[in-house]
């Protein structure tokens, strides 16, 4: 540690205003504060501070995402092995395959996103902010595994610049950066983001895996199967090789889908971490699930072959697609969510309702969680405004009584 500190102290002068490397001052500062807690002490107000800071907060979210990431690797391998007709599923080979599938995407988002953050921070002469640590891992998790890297790079650059930085950076954005990346991909490159070709990797990666898919293979996700269902058929959800899947399959997540979104179990482990540490709002998570359950129930009671997804049970609805992931990791982004406690209930509940509403009744979109969260991001300030107004009205009423 002492050696490292000495090294930093030795190179530090080069990054200060007179130094040759001043252009990289923010980058250096970012690394220094990452390695050593800043020594700056309080200059006004309270003299002691809580140990929590935004680095801690963000890192907890990253930790909470790890179960999903690891399971996503396994599942990517598993789906590949299944699609290529394997009968044995060697754990480490599956993991290696999944790792090789996701690594380039992680590197792409972090290099593009952090690169832009570094440049902007330097330009604004600010500290590097940690928000992208989470965004960078979220993006690969919510994209189909076959998404080309160049698309991810463009979409990441677009949302970091136009959704976050032009508003002022972390803490000022209106929309969830990771979800806008997903939405950008979805609307700009629909062929690569939906359908039955993109959710399962069928080609070997760096020589790992097989190349020949089995007969009767279909890579459609369960929700994709609904979207392409003709309305006069009974719906039977199947996996890639035609075997029927159960609610438990959906819960554990060995089904095709976006990289990290399939396993409700792993998402719930992440939710436990976030709720235990108090980083995510339980109000939001609870009310998203409540809203989703209510809407699923309504859809299920009035089920009609016209909208095949209305046949799904409440449990299936909550386990499938990106719903649980959105509830736990997207809706709870404190910057884009409602900031009042009452607002959080309303915000979460409406996300749940809209996610299922879009999923069931808009056959153009097989999944509605992404759009529901983005929609409510836009309405969050309005909901907060109403809650704040009620506080203001209480105060005005009190004044009238006095007069």
């Amino acid at each position, binding site marked *: 540690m002492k050696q490292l500190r000495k090294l930093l102290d030795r190179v530090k002068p080069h990054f200060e205003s007179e130094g040759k490397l001043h252009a990289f001052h923010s980058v250096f500062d970012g690394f220094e504060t990452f390695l050593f*807690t800043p020594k700056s002490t309080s200059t006004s107000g*309270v003299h002691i*501070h809580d*140990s929590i800071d935004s680095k801690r907060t963000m890192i907890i979210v990253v930790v909470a995402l790890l179960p999903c990431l690891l399971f996503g690797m396994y599942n990517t391998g598993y789906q590949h092995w299944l699609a290529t007709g394997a009968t044995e599923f060697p754990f480490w080979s599956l993991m290696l395959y999944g790792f090789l599938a996701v690594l380039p995407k992680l590197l792409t988002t972090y290099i593009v996103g952090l690169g832009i953050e570094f440049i902007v921070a330097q330009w604004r002469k600010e500290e590097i902010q940690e928000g992208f640590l989470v965004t960078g891992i979220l993006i690969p998790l919510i994209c189909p595994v076959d998404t080309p890297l160049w698309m991810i790079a463009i979409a990441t650059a677009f949302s970091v610049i136009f959704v976050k930085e032009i508003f002022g950076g*972390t803490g000022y954005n209106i929309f969830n950066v990771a979800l806008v990346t997903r939405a950008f991909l979805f609307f700009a490159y629909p062929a690569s983001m939906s359908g039955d070709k993109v959710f399962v990797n069928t080609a070997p990666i760096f020589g790992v895996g097989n190349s020949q898919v089995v007969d009767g293979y279909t890579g459609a996700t369960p929700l994709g199967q609904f979207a392409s269902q003709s309305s006069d058929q009974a719906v039977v959800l199947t996996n890639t090789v035609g075997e029927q899947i159960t609610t438990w399959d959906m819960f554990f997540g060995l089904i095709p889908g976006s990289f990290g979104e399939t396993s409700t179990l792993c998402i719930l482990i992440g939710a436990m971490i976030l709720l235990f540490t108090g980083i995510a709002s339980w109000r939001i998570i609870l009310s998203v699930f409540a809203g989703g359950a209510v809407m699923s129930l309504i859809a299920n009671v009035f089920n009609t072959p016209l909208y095949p997804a209305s046949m799904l049970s409440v449990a299936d609805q909550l386990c499938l697609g990106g719903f649980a992931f959105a509830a736990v990791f997207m809706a709870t982004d404190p910057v884009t969510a409602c900031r009042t406690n009452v607002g959080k209930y309303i915000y979460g509940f409406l996300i749940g309702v809209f996610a299922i509403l879009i999923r069931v009744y808009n056959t153009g979109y097989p999944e509605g969680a992404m759009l529901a969260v983005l929609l409510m991001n836009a309405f969050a300030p309005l909901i907060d405004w109403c809650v704040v107004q009620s506080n203001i009205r209480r*105060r005005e009423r009190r004044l009238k009584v006095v007069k």
Partner: protein
Amino acid sequence: MSLNLRIKKGLDIKIAGAIASSETVVKVSPKTVAVVPDDFPGFTPKVEVKDGDNVTVGQPLLHDKHDEQIKLVAPVSGTVKGVVRGERRKIERVVIEPAADTATQSDVEIPQLSTAEEVAKFLKNKGLWAMMRQRPYDIVPSAMAKPRDIFVTAIDSAPLAINPAEFIAADKEALAKGVELLQMLTKGKVYVSRRHNSALSDIEGAEMVDIEGPHPAGNVGVQIANISPINKGETIWTLDAMTLWRIGRAALTGVVPTEAYVAVVGSEIAKPQVVCTTIGADVESIVSGNLKADERNKRIIAGNVLSGTKIAADGYLRFPYRQLTVIPEGNDVDEFMGWASISLSKNSESRSFPGHFFKKIFNPDARLKGGRRAFIMSGEYDRYLPMDIMSEFLIKAIIGRDIEQMEKLGIYEVAPEDFALGEYADTSKIEAQKIVREGLDYLRKELE
């Protein structure tokens, strides 16, 4: 009559250096004392004395530019050692060296106080007026506004504070006299708040408020908000029990008591204790020989760790002259990846730190422990503010200098200290108290 107030929201930060027993009080005679006009927001100082003048205790040193009757007076008899001025000739402090022989005042007369005007003039001239505060704005009361009610606090819930009622509870005569005088200044009530089961017995004429709960239960703003909130156009006066006692004593004898009971606390104090000294005493006299002899840089705080003032080692006690806290500064520590720490000794209200679950005593230093950010986490301020205030929105309105919105969100009800706990727990390390203070000053300037 008495009210009960049970505060639920809040937090008692457990930090090292508390006083084990407040029964032994150590007497300290200061080498010098100082009056610091900055302690009295809203008071614009004009000097009445100059270097080398001999002053007697109770003699005016400064008066307010807007109301000449409001004085700050000498806490001791002695020689004026300096009128220290800072940038743009702003008066920073008036320092007095106490005379060796503390001759008692000779021509003391017991004041005749039968009207509100007489009481007001008496308090102003004796330097007691400046020891009160008014809401809105958290300033020395302006002479114009009549207070709706007056709130006296005989409770201090801040970290490491001692019960201020303890030392004066026995002098019932003076407390009752003080309440009687205050009652002449308001048509409303005089509330006196005390810790539930406090040694302070009921005071005649006052509405007693028994308070339970964690900090900020002792903050007068919290008490006002939960008893009878301030509306736009109303004024409330607030003072602490010590000031009430001084008012009563002064009215009974004609002499303002100048002793102050100070809790000398904090992890860098060798033996935390109660010190009885003079208002505005120099810190050196108080802490000499009682600082820990370790190599750490120390931060001396006049007041508590949440809303006190950082002072230099040659500084002075500051209003309300109740507490002196010394903690490690912390700028001499190299902490490797503190954000990833799972150490049990890290103080935090976040459950992401294991230390949170083992409620032991912490020894925090003055580091921010993170970088300053925009608001990220929500609800961190409301969590510790037992008032009907939407803190975060109010802070944003203040930053935006939106007067209408500030009024609507209740800026008249708050003082900076009400946001201290939120500022402590804030992930984004926002300087909430500074923002609120600037907001109050801005509002006053714009509206007057």
